[in-house]
């Protein structure tokens, strides 16, 4: 039983870190730069497709993942230069509609290029093995790798946003572009670069998640909503908060799926429990978000409280 619970906790942690990885670029672009980028999910999807493409070309998984990240970064830079930079000073609603338009274009382009149906994205032999962990748990190597990458990304982002001058300038620019530029900062160049970096992170996440998920048009959208959940309940702009939120969401979701039904059947009849259990499990993340925002309207670890 302990082993089971431990393994489920590990699963939850793993899912959480994966969610963080997916949400990382979004935290940067939405939380820090204050630009609502619905097309983040599309960049994620492109990452998965690019990884498949590059794996076919290079034969190396790691090279493919890196190239996919860079490829998506380039796409992100193009988006930024052509569209996004015209929108920073506009309202959130304008961001929403333009990036929604981008989703449509991205999904359809992918469907035209690769077909509307899922494509193959697999792992090299070396990564598709299991490792033995304490308590008799054997765990897929690849999932451990994902945890590792997620933690590295979290650390890098945290440092970048909180402690570097670039991070401070971006946060400043998100609230007052004119003044930052009057202070001698080339804010539009900076924003372009940061957007590109956010896109890189989205691409990286997509490339890494590809072998776990079904790589198909629209795969970014369910992921997108979860990412927003993570960013918002973590507290806008807070990397620590996003990581914490991602792990909580991962754990709650996994634990809900694993134990809620058994838990409910302690009070309710088996029939009702097996009806209510899964229903509740799928709502759990949203219930969690509603509760957190109800009691802490600014999220778990907000960058700052409003006065």
């Amino acid at each position, binding site marked *: 039983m302990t082993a089971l619970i431990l393994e489920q906790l590990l699963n939850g942690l793993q899912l959480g870190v994966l969610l963080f990885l997916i949400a990382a670029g979004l935290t940067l672009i939405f939380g820090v730069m204050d630009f609502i980028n619905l097309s983040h999910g599309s960049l994620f999807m492109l990452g998965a497709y690019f990884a498949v493409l590059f794996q076919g070309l290079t034969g190396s998984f790691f090279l493919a993942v890196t190239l996919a990240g860079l490829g998506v970064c380039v796409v992100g830079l193009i988006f930024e230069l052509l569209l996004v930079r015209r929108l920073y000073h506009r309202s959130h609603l304008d961001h929403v509609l333009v990036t929604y338009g981008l989703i449509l274009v991205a999904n359809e382009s992918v469907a035209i290029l690769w077909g509307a*149906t899922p494509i193959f994205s697999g792992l090299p032999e070396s990564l598709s093995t299991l490792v033995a962990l304490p308590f008799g748990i054997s765990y897929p190597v690849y*999932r451990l790798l994902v945890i590792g990458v997620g933690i590295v990304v979290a650390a890098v982002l945290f440092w970048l946003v909180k402690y570097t001058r670039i991070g401070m300038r971006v946060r400043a620019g998100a609230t007052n572009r004119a003044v930052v530029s009057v202070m001698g900062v080339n804010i539009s160049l900076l924003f372009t670069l940061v957007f590109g970096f956010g896109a890189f992170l989205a691409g990286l996440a997509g490339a890494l998640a590809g072998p776990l998920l079904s*790589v198909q048009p629209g*795969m970014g959208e*369910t992921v997108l909503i979860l990412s927003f959940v993570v960013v918002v309940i973590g507290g806008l702009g807070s990397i620590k908060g996003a990581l914490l939120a991602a792990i909580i969401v991962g754990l709650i979701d996994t634990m809900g*799926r*694993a134990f809620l039904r058994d838990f409910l059947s302690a009070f309710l009849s088996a029939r009702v429990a097996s009806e209510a259990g*899964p229903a509740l499990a799928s709502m759990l993340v949203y219930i969690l978000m509603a509760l957190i925002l109800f009691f802490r309207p600014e999220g778990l670890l907000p960058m700052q409280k409003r006065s």
Partner: protein
Amino acid sequence: ETVDVGLILSLSGSGAVLGTEMQKGADLALEMSGGKLGGLEGHFLYEDDQRKPDVGKTAAEKLIRSEKVDFVIGPSYSNVMMAVQAPIVRTGTILISPNPAPAELAGANCDANYFSIPFQNDQPAEALGLHMNEKGIKKVFVVVPNYQAGKDVVEGFKRTFKGEIVSEIYTPLEQNDFSAEMTEIKTADPEAVLAFMPGGLGVQFVKQYDQAGLKPMADLYTVFTVFNGVSLDAIGAAAEGVYSVDQWTYDLDNPANKEFVAAYSTKYGTLPSNFAAMAFDAVRLIDGAITAAGGVEDKEAVRAAMKAASFQSVRGDFAFNTNQHPIHAMYIARVSKDEATGALAVRNEGMIVDKMADSYAAECTLE
């Protein structure tokens, strides 16, 4: 004189996986009969329902009222089927389902104008129960998505399976990660796993099942989850050895099927899926009925001819029950390499049951 057939399929969005397969099958059928249906000029009108019931309903009205089609084939999913069935059949237009066949429409709400080509939804799971009984499998773990079709599969399986279901898990419909379920399966240590994971879910589930190292521990039996072409291409080697229960496989030995598979492979470069095959059959059913009735004018005659199922099904033996759902054989199949092409395919491993009727026909009042 022409025959107009409206096809309401899910052609965009996440539902496109099935819709495009069906489109391929239907197109091929018309092409093979030289663009003619029962000797008359055949004309297809495609409508995309985007897997949304209300969009499907509007499409249906367009086909019936505006285009005044003679037949409708579709839709791809049962939620859309529930919305379009009544409005179509009440105008006297004939509706043929290429895939979804919910219990309600096979039983109490059966209709003279409604035909299901592939099966009644519960049948594959019922057949699987029989198969497992026969093989002496006692402990089974069941995973299905938490919606009506998932529950139907479990019900169907329980109807025939005599062993123990160690656990039945209902997963949210929009789920990306199955690691919690994999851990549960591992802990429960069943002899076999029954999974029903349609569309993209299936790709994820089978891949993750393999990555979790479960394949050697318990055989994976599936319904409506793996199919030739896109699905197996997307899953890759992880799918090898997975079982599937189907009413049709591409290697069935009958002339109609041989002809179909050969033509399909030539035209599209892959093996046909059962969705393509069923859509193909649906068109063939229309073709045969018009030939038998000598035209489309006399609706009664067409309906009677349809019911007689006077066409060469890719399944070989084929007949409609009183509720206009098929009586047919069910097969156990397994994913392995096709000798000729080397591609992975769902290959026949033997018949489970012949002339199987569905469980709801008795509730239907049709003669």
